[in-house]
Each structure stands twice: as structure tokens, then as C-alpha cells.
């Protein structure tokens, strides 16, 4: 094998906006061979994206060297050769597309390289075919989905015929469908075209298919090995602020109870195989269904007695109404939210779930059906929308993008000031809101908003909504773009808010998160309510969810698989790792028949 990328004792230091030196990389040694698929993992701030930018000379070393083939990245005369050899796809597809027509964007790289016209046309066709977007060549990129846009970006890189493809968190902003599309393409290019792939990500499950995994922490390589070798070190990975795939975690837990149970399991298939082979798995017994791990605050019976806080009936919504571009985003959605509940909305991008949520505080008006919030019919012209907005707080995706004040305290105060409260009342609300998101009032109120970390800014934005003291909080993808530790912290925070009596509506496509925290779920596809029920009821239909282009939690998929193979009785209410551990341990530990 020939090395295609060689990194020797790489250091990178840059000045932070505040002027202090930040050591992003502190001595990295790394060799990538032609044809390898390498995953580089690490929490936010571990230096993984900085490392990636050294591999195609977007950054130059402060100390040490980086070679691409035989070229040192410091050699400016080779910069274009290096960038044509090492193609890079970035996180946000929108910010990489240059042209207003798909095929012209794909041609941008070859144009820069001075490729003759006929060859360029051939390359554009070939690249679009590789990513399955040939029929979209004349489209405008802004009308495509996130996954499709990212595929266009990959095609744009492929058209330069690179030998290495770097995916710099290229899947972080995509929904599960888009993520799978992109990863499938990367795997296929690696296998069939021999393209070397370096995939940078925070998510372990994206690294399962890599030949080699490199874990960065604090600018250094902390661990290196095959996915199988690394993933079983669950505790070590946790301490590096990373997550393990559900199946690996389950395997490790079972391994602790039954030492002969294999701990190095990566996928549902392997787990089902291992369980079948263990030979101890009994045909279904009358085991009690494991109850959800979180005790419900209010019981179902109590809830049915009082009217729901929010009732949506047969909602219809059209965008661009009254123009030739009118499209129906929501056809027929009904849902109830009762006081004290955590309700989850599941659906892939474009299913209409975000549109539905914007009706809950009157940002959008129904074009059909009705929306009743806290007893007010929002479709009637006399509805007091401002009062509803005060009661139903809406937190958008990436809410940190809405911050605008210089100081944290002022930004959180925007809502209360809009309510016309006096100084003292505003101050009290800001203090309470900041403290409930874990930002000390005195410590943070005079900090510069834009000097905070991404996770802290998201908390400030959340506090800005909480300062309105809403009864219901609706969150659109609250954990999107965070690393595993950030996700866990934010979910804990949200659950803490729920304990103070706030009713939650959570939109997410992270099924494992929803499975762990929600009382009830609604599945929305093509603008219609497709399924509703408790997590147990919904995730018992893992196959149907797959059919709708949605992920089921890996545990739910496993139960489905086991039931299919006749190893357990169908439909156990098991969808979290804890439940699966208890359920399977009981089965595995049962005496032989």
C-alpha cells in the first residue's frame, strides 16, 4: 500500500478573536494509504476539522509537515495539484454551491482547472451519475433537499477526479435519509472507484464501515484502530465525550452480565446473530413488558379528564397561496397536547412537521381545519395571537442564529421587554430564565453573546424563549448539530424544564432520543398524521417506520428482527438500551427448557 496522505508532527496554533493563542493541533502523526476508508472522530473542539483543512492545504502547519502524495502542502506551486487530488465536502451544503444550475455548479472545479470543454462535459455527466443526480442537472439547487444538495457538492468534487474525498462533517446537517444517501455514496466510491475516503464526524455509527477509526481529543490522537477494536471501550469513549452505537452499548452491557457474550458487536444484524447463536434465547415467555424508565408525571387517566392545552384538528396549510407556485405542505394533521406531557413529532424533512408546529403559536394560520390553543380558536379573527405566543414558546432549529444583542442579559431580556414589563420584572425573569438553562445570571449577563461557545449560545437562545414564561415549549430539533455530550446535556436540561411543569412538544428525527423521553409520539408523513401512540406502540412498528423513510431506534429494529426469527414474541415494549438489557438479560438468564 502506498501512503497518499502523510502527516508528521503537525501542530496548528491560531489566535482566538480575543487574541489568545489556541493550540488546535498538538503533534499529529498520521498516514492514510490509497484506497482506505478512514473515519476521524472527536468532540467539538477536538481539532478534527482543523486537521481536515490541513489535508488539502486550506491551512498550513504552524509546525510539522503534511504531504499529499509527494507534495508538501507548504509548496505553494503545488497547491492546485493538492486540492485537485484531495477533494473536500463541507458541513453546510448551501454554503458550498456556487452556481444557480446544478450542472454548472458541478463544472465549477473543472473550469478552474482549465479542463477542455468535451472532457468537462464527460466528467460532469459521470459525476452526476455517481451520486444519482443526473436527472436533476438542470434544476436550481435551492429547490433540492439537504441530502440532494450535499450529493451535488460531492459531484462537484468528483468532477475534479480526486484520489481522496474528505467529508468534513458532511452529514451533520442532514436528516437520516440524507445522511444515509451521502454515506452510501462515499462507501460505493471507496469500494468501486478506489477513492480514498476520510470521513470526519462526531457520530460513532457513521464510523462503523470505516477500515480504521482515529479519535482525536484536545488536538492529539487519543485512540486508533478498527471500529470493532475501539467501540467496545465504551467507558473510554464516554470519557472522550463520544457516544457508542446502541448495539455496541447493549452488547457491552450484556457482556458484563454474561462474560461469554461477545462485546464487539456493531450492528443489528450482528446482535441478532449473536443472540440466536447464544442458544439460550427462549421462545417467548410471558415476561412482563418492561415499563418506560422515566416515571410519568401525570397519568393517562388524569389527562383524558381535562381538555388538552393544544388541539389541532384536520389542519391544512398551503405555502405561496394564491400564486402559481402554491403547494400544500400540510394535508390533514390532528394532534393533542395535554398539560404536563412530552409529545414528540417524528417525520423526515419536508413531511410538514415544522409547518405544523408554527401553527401552535399562531405564526402561521390554518388554511383548513382548526387549531385551538389554551381555549383560543386561532382561526377566528378575534384570537389574541400575542397572548398565545406568550404561553407557547417556540424554539426554532439552530436558535443561536436569532441572537442579536451584544450582551447575553440584553438578548434574554428582548422577550420580557416586548411584553412591556418594568425594569425589575424584566430583571427577575431574565435571572430565572438564565438560571434554568444553567447559565448563572451574575456570571453570564454581561458576557459578550458572540464570544460564547455554540452550545452556550443555544442555551442563551433557549433562555430568551423561557423568559416569556411559557406553559408549553415547542422545540424544533433542539439537539441538531451538537456533539454527543452536548446532546446529552441539552436533553437533561430540557427534561429539567419539564419537571418544573412546562409541557413539551419536541420535533426530532433522532428516534433514539425521542424514544427515551416522550410520553406520546405522532408520526407525520406527507403532511398527514400517519401514526400516533406511546413510544412502545410506535416503535413496535419498526418496519413500517422504515417504509416511511424513518429510522427506528436500533433496539426497536433488533426486537423486530428477533420476533421475525421467532426468537421472541412480537411486539415487546422495548425501545431503549436499558429496557433491552433488562429484557434480554431476563431471557438469557432463564433456565434451559
Amino acid at each position, binding site marked *: 500500500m502506498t501512503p497518499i496522505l502523510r502527516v508528521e508532527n503537525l501542530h496548528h496554533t491560531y489566535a482566538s478573536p480575543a487574541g489568545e493563542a489556541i493550540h488546535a493541533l498538538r503533534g499529529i502523526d498520521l498516514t492514510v494509504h490509497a484506497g482506505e476508508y478512514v473515519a476521524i472522530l472527536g468532540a467539538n473542539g477536538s481539532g478534527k476539522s482543523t486537521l481536515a*483543512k490541513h489535508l488539502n492545504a*486550506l491551512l498550513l502547519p504552524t509546525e510539522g509537515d503534511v504531504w499529499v502524495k509527494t507534495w508538501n502542502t507548504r509548496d505553494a506551486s503545488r497547491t*492546485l495539484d493538492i*486540492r*485537485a487530488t484531495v*477533494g*473536500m465536502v*463541507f*458541513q*453546510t451544503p*448551501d*454554503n*458550498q*454551491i*456556487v*452556481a*444557480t444550475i446544478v*450542472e*454548472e455548479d458541478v*463544472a*465549477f472545479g*473543472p*473550469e*478552474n482547472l*482549465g*479542463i*477542455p*470543454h468535451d472532457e*468537462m*462535459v464527460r466528467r*460532469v455527466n459521470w459525476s452526476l451519475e455517481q451520486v444519482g443526480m443526473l436527472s436533476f442537472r438542470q434544476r436550481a439547487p*435551492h429547490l433540492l433537499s439537504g441530502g440532494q444538495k450535499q450529493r451535488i*457538492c460531492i459531484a*462537484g468534487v468528483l468532477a475534479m477526479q480526486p484520489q481522496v474525498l474528505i467529508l468534513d462533517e458532511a452529514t451533520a446537517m442532514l436528516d437520516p435519509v440524507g445522511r444515509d444517501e451521502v454515506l452510501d455514496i462515499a462507501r460505493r466510491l471507496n469500494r468501486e472507484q478506489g477513492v480514498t475516503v476520510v470521513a470526519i464526524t462526531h457520530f460513532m455509527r457513521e464510523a462503523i464501515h470505516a477500515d480504521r477509526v482515529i479519535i482525536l481529543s484536545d488536538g492529539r490522537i487519543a485512540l486508533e484502530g478498527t471500529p470493532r477494536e475501539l467501540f467496545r471501550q465504551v467507558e473510554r469513549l464516554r470519557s472522550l465525550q463520544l457516544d457508542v452505537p446502541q448495539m455496541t452499548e447493549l452488547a457491552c452491557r450484556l457482556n458484563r452480565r454474561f462474560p461469554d457474550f461477545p462485546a464487539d458487536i456493531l450492528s443489528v444484524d450482528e446482535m441478532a446473530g449473536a443472540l440466536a447463536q447464544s442458544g439460550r434465547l427462549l421462545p417467548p415467555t410471558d415476561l412482563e413488558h418492561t415499563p418506560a424508565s422515566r416515571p410519568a408525571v401525570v397519568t393517562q387517566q388524569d389527562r383524558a379528564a381535562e381538555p388538552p392545552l393544544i388541539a389541532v384538528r384536520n389542519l391544512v396549510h398551503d*405555502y*405561496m397561496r394564491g400564486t402559481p*407556485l402554491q403547494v400544500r405542505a400540510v394535508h390533514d394533521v390532528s394532534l393533542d397536547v395535554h398539560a404536563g406531557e412530552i409529545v414528540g413529532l417524528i417525520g423526515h424533512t419536508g413531511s410538514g412537521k415544522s409547518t405544523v408546529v*408554527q401553527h401552535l*403559536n399562531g*405564526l*402561521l*394560520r390554518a388554511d383548513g381545519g382548526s387549531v385551538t390553543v389554551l381555549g383560543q380558536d386561532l382561526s377566528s379573527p378575534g384570537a389574541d*395571537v400575542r397572548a398565545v*405566543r*406568550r404561553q407557547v*414558546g*417556540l424554539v*426554532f432549529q439552530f*436558535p443561536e*442564529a*436569532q441572537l*442579536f*444583542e451584544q450582551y447575553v442579559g440584553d438578548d434574554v431580556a*428582548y*422577550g420580557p421587554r*416586548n*411584553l412591556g414589563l418594568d425594569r425589575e420584572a424584566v430583571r427577575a425573569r431574565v435571572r430565572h430564565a438564565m438560571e434554568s438553562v444553567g447559565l448563572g445570571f451574575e456570571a453570564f449577563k454581561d458576557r459578550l453573546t*458572540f464570544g460564547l461557545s455554540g452550545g452556550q449560545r443555544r442555551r442563551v437562545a433557549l433562555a*430568551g*424563549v423561557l423568559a416569556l414564561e411559557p406553559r408549553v415549549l415547542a422545540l424544533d430539533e433542539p439537539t441538531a448539530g451538537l456533539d454527543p455530550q452536548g446532546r446529552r446535556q441539552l436533553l437533561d436540561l430540557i427534561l429539567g424544564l419539564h419537571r418544573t411543569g412546562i409541557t413539551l412538544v419536541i420535533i426530532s428525527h433522532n428516534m433514539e432520543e425521542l424514544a427515551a423521553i416522550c410520553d406520546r409520539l405522532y408520526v407525520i408523513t406527507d403532511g398527514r398524521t400517519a401514526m400516533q401512540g406511546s413510544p412502545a406502540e410506535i416503535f413496535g412498528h419498526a418496519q413500517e417506520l422504515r417504509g416511511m423513510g424513518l429510522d427506528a431506534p436500533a433496539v426497536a429494529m433488533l426486537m423486530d428482527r428477533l420476533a421475525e426469527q421467532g426468537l421472541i414474541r412480537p411486539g415487546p415494549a422495548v425501545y431503549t438500551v436499558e429496557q433491552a438489557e433488562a429484557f434480554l438479560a431476563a431471557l438469557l438468564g432463564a433456565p434451559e427448557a
Partner: protein
Amino acid sequence: MQNFELLRNVTIGQYIPAGSAVHRLDPRAKILAAGMLVLAVSFNTSILANTVFLALVLAVTLVARIPVRYMLRGLLMAVPVLVFIFVMQALFLGWNEPAGAVYVQWGWVRLTRNSLHLMVISMLRIIAFIFLTSLVTMTSTTTELTHGVELLLTPLRRVGVPAHELALILTIALRFVPTLAEEVERIMKAQASRGGEFGVQRIWRPDKLAKAYLPLIVPLFLSAFRRAEELVLAMEARCYVSGAARTRYVVLRARPLDYAVAAGAFLFALWMMFYPLPAVRELLALLGIEGL
């Protein structure tokens, strides 16, 4: 109730895909023809020639299968401007000349034969400008137009006109119009959810207006800067070097019809610029029509 759907109001690049012969013309021919005609109209002071020109533009509109209704809607936006110009001219134009046939004199307003003539001409001109430019944008995609502009400017590279860079700036600007429009919509909704209100401020208090829009403008600019930075990295990663020699993916090939259109527009422009020709004037005088 506010209307958050900003995309509906974005009219840039209002392309109407009717697939007519006009649509299929080379964008360079359309840009050149429109440019020459605009120039010619600006020099012509004859009501007859301006009317003929307007009729011609409407005829091409019909050939292009563009509903005349759409054209008139474009005019609607210009009504305030037209009214403003008309009022200003009515107030001031008449006093420019000491003599001449005064038709109406009422206080400050004095309408003379000459001022009325100029007023009619300027209205006809503005309407013709609007129709002509809409006709070009309605029959060519923004992409075609940027390629057209780039290729037309390419010969000027030698005298230092950065043709490709200008076209790229234009393309990127157009590319980000929908993206930023969506962004504005999202930020507006987020701030509205925090009790923020837009569009209810009084315009005669610009200080309050600016303050109310700060929660919208600051995040929008920050996001635009962040996007710009990422775009620069992505372009560099794809080997973009400003000013470097590069090849072109899109190749425009002019057909005989394109040359004919450009030549026809040139001749018509010449006629407009030098009309009234002496011969035509004599002919018209014979028919008893004068002073058009």
C-alpha cells in the same frame, strides 16, 4: 396578522418558461438588442417613433407568449415613480421657456405645448424601458443573462474589465437570494415568537423603526458573513483562483436568427436616432401632419 412568506414577493429573475422563439434566442443577442434600443429611445424625441417602438415591444411580447397582463403588473410597481416624474414636470417644465403656446396656467402649474410634449415623451420612454427590460428577464433565465453579460464583456478583459469575476459575483448574489430570503423568514418568525413585532412601526420615526429591525438585521448580517467565509473556503477547495485562466462549461452558439435580431435591432435603433428623416418629414408634411 403578518405575512411571513417573503419568497412570494421576491421578483428577481421572473422567468416565464413559455418556450417561444424569443426564449430560444442567444442571450447575448437579446442583451445587445435591448441595450441598443434603450440607447436609441433615449435620444429620440418623437411621439410617433416612441409609439411605434412601444407597439413593437408589445408585438415581441405576443410572439414570446408572455401574457400582457404580467407586463402591466411590472408597470404597476413603477406607478409611484411615474406619478412623481409627471408631477415634477408639470410643476417645473413649463417655466423653462419664456415663450411658446401656453395651454394652461393655474398657479404654479404652467403647461405649454413643449412641456406637454416632453411629458408625454418621458412617460412613453419609461414605459418602454420597463417593458423592454421585463421582456428580456421574462424570456431569459438569470443564468443565461449572466453568461451573456460575461461573454459580451470578455473582449474588454484586455482593458482591465474583470468579466468573469463580475459574472461570478452576479451568479453568487442570485444564488443566495432565495437562501437569504428563507433566512430572513426564519429569523422574523423566531423574533415574533419572542414578542417582537415588525411592520407596525411608524415610518416617521426612523429611530424606532431601525431599533425594531435590529433583531432581524444583526442575525442576518452575521449569517451572511459566516456563509461568505464558508463559501470562500469551499471555492478555494475547488481550486478557484481569482483571475486565473479557466475554461467554460457553458458554451453559447449564436445562430443566424440571433445575428438577424441583433442587426435588426441595430437598424431600428439607427432609424430611431435619426428620425425624423428629412424624406419622412416631407412625406408627412404632404399628408398634413406636422410637428410629431
